[in-house]
């Protein structure tokens, strides 16, 4: 089955299809529901925040709003050397606060039928399981659906 076939499937079936913004982090494809994504930016000038949790890459200025940048490679436990400076930023909103998820690349928007979404395999690394809401088996790769709240919710050391 190819992506074209996927698209056909979504066109012809009566089941609802969800649109995902796809992105890759450390070679793995991820998707975020398109309605959650506010903006996609190229590499940004990011101010490091001393003493912040490891996953927090810093803050950036998005048209006058201060956006907290999350290093997705670190969030997923991947090596992140020299990553931040050339990363793409996917801006999402969580609890009325803007965040930008730093990823390697941002790809196309895919429309995938909801019923083809599969549960997250139990064997997945817990760091990944925590943020994954489901998986799509595309013909050439696996697409992991990221839960925005899951990614951001736990990054918060209590005072």
């Amino acid at each position, binding site marked *: 089955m190819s992506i074209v076939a996927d698209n056909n499937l979504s066109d012809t079936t009566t089941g609802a299809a969800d649109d995902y913004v796809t992105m890759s982090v450390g070679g793995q494809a991820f998707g975020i529901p398109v309605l959650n994504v506010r903006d996609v930016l190229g590499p940004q*000038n990011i*101010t*490091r*925040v*001393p*003493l*912040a*949790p490891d996953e*927090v890459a*810093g*803050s*950036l*200025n998005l*048209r*006058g*709003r*201060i956006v*907290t940048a*999350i290093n997705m490679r670190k969030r997923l436990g991947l090596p992140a050397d020299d990553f931040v400076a050339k990363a793409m930023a996917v801006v999402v909103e969580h*609890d009325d*606060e803007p*965040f930008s998820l730093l990823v390697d690349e941002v790809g196309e928007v895919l429309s995938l039928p909801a019923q083809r979404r599969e549960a997250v395999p139990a064997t997945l690394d817990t760091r990944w399981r925590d943020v994954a809401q489901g998986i799509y088996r595309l013909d050439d790769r696996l697409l992991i659906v990221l839960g925005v709240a899951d990614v*951001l919710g736990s*990054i*918060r*050391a*209590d*005072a």
Partner: protein
Amino acid sequence: MGHADMDDLLKEFLAETREALDVLDSELVELEQRPGDPALLGSIFRIMHTIKGTCGFLGLPRLETVAHAAEDVLGRVRDGGLEVSPEVVSLVLAALDRIKELVADLGASGSEPAGSDDELTSALRVLASGEAPPVASEAPAVRPGTLYERAGGASGIDTACEIACAAFLEKVAQGDALAPDMLRLQFALAGGFAVALQKTPGIDIADVLTCLADNGWTESDIGTLRGEIGKAFASLAVNAEDVTALLGLLSREEPKPAAAPAPAAPKAGRPETAPPAERRDAAAGQAETLRVNINVLEDLMTMVSELVLTRNQLLQILRGCGDSPFGPPLQRLNQVTTELQESVMMTRMQPIGNAWGKLPRLVRDLTQELDKKIELIMLGADTELDRQILESIRDPLTHMVRNSADHGIETVGERLAAGKPEHGTIELSARHEGGHIVVQVSDNGRGLPTARIREKVVANGLATESQLETMTEQQIQQFIFRPGFSTAAAVTSVSGRGVGMDVVRSNIEKIGGIIEFQSTEGAGSRFVIKIPLTLAIVSALIVECAGERFAMPQNSVIELVRISHTSEKGLESINGRPVYRLRDRLLPLVSLAEILDLPRTDAAEEEDGPGSTYVVVSQVGAFVFGIIVDKVFDTEEIVVKPVSRTIRHIPSFSGTTILGDGRVIMILDPNGLATAVSAAPHVEATQQADGSHQVRGRDAVSMLVFQTGDGGPKAVPLSLVARLEEADLSTAEQAGARTVLQYRGGLMPLIGLDSQPAARSGKHPILVFVDGHRMLGLVVDRVIDIIEAPLDLQLAGGSRPGILGSAIIAGATTDVIDTVHYLRQSDPDWFSVETEKAFGEEDSRNVLLVEDSAFFRNLLMPMLTLAGYHVTVAEHGEAAIEICKDHGRFDIIVSDIEMPGLSGFDLARMLKSDAQMKGVPIIALSSHANPKDIERGMSAGFTDYVTKLDPKALLSVLSRVLSSDESATEIAA
């Protein structure tokens, strides 16, 4: 009129009515307390009347009926036919609630829900019809009462005028142009009728007409108006005869006015000047305010922020290029931007009272429901804060007040039994405090027993008994904010305080605020909320450290010191613990790079640089310290934005901002940095190295460790040392038996340890102690280090004069010297002067010193004794209580705050609740006093607050408190 117009009208009506209802709520409650206030009553009446009128216009029969019935009751109250009683107010409030329900439904569905309000309206009518017949609605054939009453009373007349004015507008060609004045005219007419019919003082109806004429109304206009008024009264079922009589009033004194215009019709006039002053104000107020959608303001604010940033950027470029033709216009742009920014900020500011509007009603209802007597005091209602924040604290505040009324305040019977006044008090207060707003909700109810919280905490598994043992009462009380605390059992057994408090806390924290809870069993509870003025624009100093920039709020910066690397004069960096000699004091220093764990700039870069560092001298409370940074830039006006939730736990930052060049930087929090000074990583390392486990999170003390003569290292508390100098002792001179050194234009006596004459030669470090004009130099061989560590004297000084005892500092046994001994040696009067001033030859005063640290006991006791006090020492809080019981009265108690077991706060509270001891002033000792501590101390019952390491301050406070003993006692009690 299109459907869309109708929707807009409805929306506007809903918004207006909701606001009006809130006002009515609190005004009615106020009316109950001040039944005789005509202005208040008038205002209530007017609001209800407007609601009724608008509902009629929009075709909302249920709302109109209810509002009308309530208005009738109010009308009778206004006319003196009905007393303001709790029943009346309750019934009108019930009508208000019904209106609220209807309005809510209307807002949700766009139409009035079906249903009947007969029960309510008939109850209202019964009240309204007390002795006189009910108004307008059924005022048929029979005509009892005065013409005024037959015309429908105040409400009838108002309604008639309103209808007439509206109809008039539609008839007259230039109606649109007149529209803005119509409201005033309507009020003026209604007022005029009331004056004419009731013979009350005021502007007569005829004068209103005069004014109409003066303002250029034609006779035909006035005729039309008159006709409409007649029709309006008729439509309100006023009978024909009365209508004629009423219109007669309108034409009666026409001679004066009619002079100007055409002959035919009589009366003339025009609104403008006539309305009674008060009404005109109301009308003017309406003309000057405008309802604006919140989103518009939000957008405006965002754009202004952008504009400010762009402006900053332009100015920065301008500074870089000297003379430029863009200079003057940019300056102008600068000014305009600043003004624009201020104006936009103003549009967002609202008095906090807006969030309190519903509370009087809430408290009143609870009072009736629960059969309690509660007074709600609101202070600082005009304190302004940002709209967004106001919205976020509205619900938490309501919740806290409800809790206080519901669970905090006791019933009248319980209060009397406890010896309290039967009226409970809930106090709400708000004030600005250094860039924050502090809101307090306190009550004098039963408080929350800590013991019960403990039980609950353990039962719910939030902490173990042993964990609780190590906590202060204050810490335990904060458990009420924990999610697990709000269980059903807590509602009954712990007076329900825990219910939803976790939600309250999270709401407050969402906007970057802090909430604290304090309670004293039997005496009441208090919530303190501290919220930042986000979006506030503050002036900040921009500094750089390790290549990264930070903003430092200007108001905490005292001065800037530049230190050149070539002559690091004054900067003592011994073993990594830096201090700085600033004029006559030694300043503890902290390196920003170290606190923030920034990578050190490599040496090469440092040499290339300007070859200097800067010390930003900052003050937090009474604590002054220096922050080492690499570079200092301009001060800049910055827009404070809250810190992201993910990094809010970092105490070093208070906010984020965007600089002129568009980059994001963090705003430093001086409070957080100050804490870091006393808990720098270095200290922990030292403690671990010496392996001592006596640290129990208590005050750390900076000790200056030095070497002199033979024997081990010696130490002295750094804060007692004014300066570190180095001098060639060969320049010292003999003056009598003393060795003195010329120093800063005076003579400074020099002294060596063990009283050895300071007769060495060569260069030696000198520790300088300063007290007013007196100085003393202690000559030592070598300064080793400055070490910050909790201090416990292991061996008492015993027989060795000049030594307080020994302690293990940085792994070595170190003698801690008794500064007082040496100071006295140099000048026997050193500590005695103010004592004599204070109470001369009186018997010595009894002081109870409560201090768990042997070091401080040994430091303070001799000093107090020397100053003429009779000192009793208690080693901990429990001992202090015992001693007080046995020994009886002390003149004053000086207590440490942080002690194992009973803390100073607890001790103060216990003493203050003891009948015998409560009059005794208590002074708190602490290592650094920040404003929050002081406030907490004061509320626990402390009379004053002294920094532990400042013996002079302690002495002067002692004598001041004792000499004003009576007044102090009063305050404390």
